C-alpha cells in the first residue's frame, strides 16, 4: 500500500498536461509525470519518492504513437516495451526492452519511463544514442525536437515541467547489424551487471554501455579506439583508457570483475560485427 495520498490527472492533450503540471507545481504539490507507473509505485510504497499529484501521460494521443512516418520511426513516450518488441519495428530496441525486468512488467513499463526514470541503468537509451535519435520534448513554450545527445548526459536533462512526447529515429538505424549482450549476476531477470550494445554503420562500430559505470553512455573516444586498424587487444586496451569514469564496484560485481567481463564481451562483440554480421 502506498502510505500517502495524491491526486490523479489524466490530460487529453500535451497542452493540458503542461498546464496542469504548472498549476500543481505552483500549488506546491510536487507533481510527477506518470507513464507505466512501475517505478513510481514501487518507490512510493517504500517512501523513496513523494508527490501530491500525478499527471498521467497515457491519455495524450501523440504519446501513444508507434509507426513509421516517411523514413523515420516515431515512438511515443507511453508506448510499452512489449508493444515495441512485438511490433519488430526496431528489433534492437525491442530486444533490449525485452530484457528489462520481466515480460509482464514490460507490458507496463514505457519507453519514456525507462529513459527518464531514476534507476541508473536506463538501457533503452543505448540504441537511441547509437542511432542519434531525436527527442520531442514538451514544455510551457510548446514542443521542441532536439538530438538525444544534447539532452542526455549521464541522465536525461529535462527542466521542471518538461516531458518526453516522442522519440524519432531514422529508419536506416532500425535495420543495422547489432549485438546486444546483457550480463547479470545470477538470474536472467535482474538489473545488469553490464549491458553492451553495438551496431555497425558504414563499416564502423558504434557501442554503448549500461551497468559498466554509474550511468549509461556512448563514448566517441572509445568507439574511435575500437575502430582503429590494429590488433584486437590493443584496441580494447585503448578503449578502456577512455572510460568516462570509474567502473562500478558494487554488490553486483567488483570493478575488477566487470572489467574482466567487459574485455571478454568486447572481444566477442567485435568478432561478431567484424565477421559474420547480424547476430
Amino acid at each position, binding site marked *: 500500500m502506498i502510505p500517502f*495520498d*495524491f491526486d490523479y490527472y*489524466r490530460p487529453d492533450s500535451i497542452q493540458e498536461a503542461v498546464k496542469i503540471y504548472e498549476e500543481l507545481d505552483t500549488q506546491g504539490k510536487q507533481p510527477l509525470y506518470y507513464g507505466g507507473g512501475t517505478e513510481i509505485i*514501487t518507490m512510493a510504497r517504500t517512501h523513496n519518492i513523494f508527490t501530491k499529484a500525478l499527471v*498521467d501521460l497515457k491519455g495524450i494521443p501523440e504519446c501513444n504513437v508507434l509507426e513509421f512516418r516517411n523514413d523515420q520511426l516515431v515512438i511515443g513516450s507511453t508506448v510499452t516495451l512489449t508493444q515495441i518488441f512485438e511490433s519488430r519495428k526496431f528489433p534492437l530496441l525491442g530486444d533490449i526492452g525485452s530484457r528489462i525486468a520481466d515480460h*509482464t512488467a514490460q*507490458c507496463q513499463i514505457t519507453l519514456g519511463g525507462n529513459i527518464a526514470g531514476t534507476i541508473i541503468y536506463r538501457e533503452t537509451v543505448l540504441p537511441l544514442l547509437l542511432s542519434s535519435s531525436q527527442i520531442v520534448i514538451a514544455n510551457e513554450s510548446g514542443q521542441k525536437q532536439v538530438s538525444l545527445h544534447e539532452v542526455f548526459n549521464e541522465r536525461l536533462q529535462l527542466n521542471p515541467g518538461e516531458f518526453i512526447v516522442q522519440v524519432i529515429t531514422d529508419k536506416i538505424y532500425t535495420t543495422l547489424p547489432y549485438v546486444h549482450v546483457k550480463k547479470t549476476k545470477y538470474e536472467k531477470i535482474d538489473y545488469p551487471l553490464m549491458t553492451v550494445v553495438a551496431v555497425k554503420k558504414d563499416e564502423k562500430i558504434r557501442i554503448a554501455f549500461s551497468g559498466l559505470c554509474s550511468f549509461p553512455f556512448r563514448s566517441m573516444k572509445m568507439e574511435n579506439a575500437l575502430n582503429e586498424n590494429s590488433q584486437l587487444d590493443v584496441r580494447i586496451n585503448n578503449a578502456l583508457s577512455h572510460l568516462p569514469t570509474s567502473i562500478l564496484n558494487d554488490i553486483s560485481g567488483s570493478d575488477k570483475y566487470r572489467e574482466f567481463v567487459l574485455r571478454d564481451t568486447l572481444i566477442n562483440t567485435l568478432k561478431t560485427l567484424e565477421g559474420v554480421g547480424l547476430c
Partner: protein
Amino acid sequence: MLIIEGKKVIELYVNGKKRNVVVRPADTLLYTLREQLGLTGAKPGCENGDCGSCTVIIDGWPIKSCIMLSVDAIGRNIITIEGLKDAPIQKAFVENWGFQCGYCTPGFLMVCHALANMHPNAEEHVIEKWLESNICRCTSYEEIQAAVHAILKPLS
C-alpha cells in the same frame, strides 16, 4: 481531462461488468479488487512487482495489479481469475498437475491465458519468456509448462 482528487467513486470494467468502487488515487488495483470488490483471486505476494501472484489481464495483456493504480484502470477492460469460466488453461492445469499449494496459481493462469490468446502458436522461447514473470515457491514449473503446451497449437 480525467481528474480524481481525493477519495472518489470510480467505475471499473471488471470481468465484463461495470463496477463502482470507492478509491484513493493511491490505491493499487490489487487492493481495490480484493478489498472493494471481494475478488480475492489475485494474491498479494511481494507487492513489489516481482512475483506475479497478483497478475490480472488488462486489455488483453498480463499486468501485475500490485504495481498498477486503480485509477489507471479506468476505461480499461480488466479480467481477473474470477472472470475465467472453465477456460482451457484451467482444465490443462488440473490435468497436468500444474499447482501444489495454489497460491501462485491464479497469477500463472492469467499469464498463460493471455499468452494463449495473444500467441496461440507460441514457440518454446516465447512460452519461457512469458512464464519467467511468475514465481512458484513449490517449483511446479515443469507441470505448468506442460499445461501451457497442452493448450497451444505450435506451427508445424
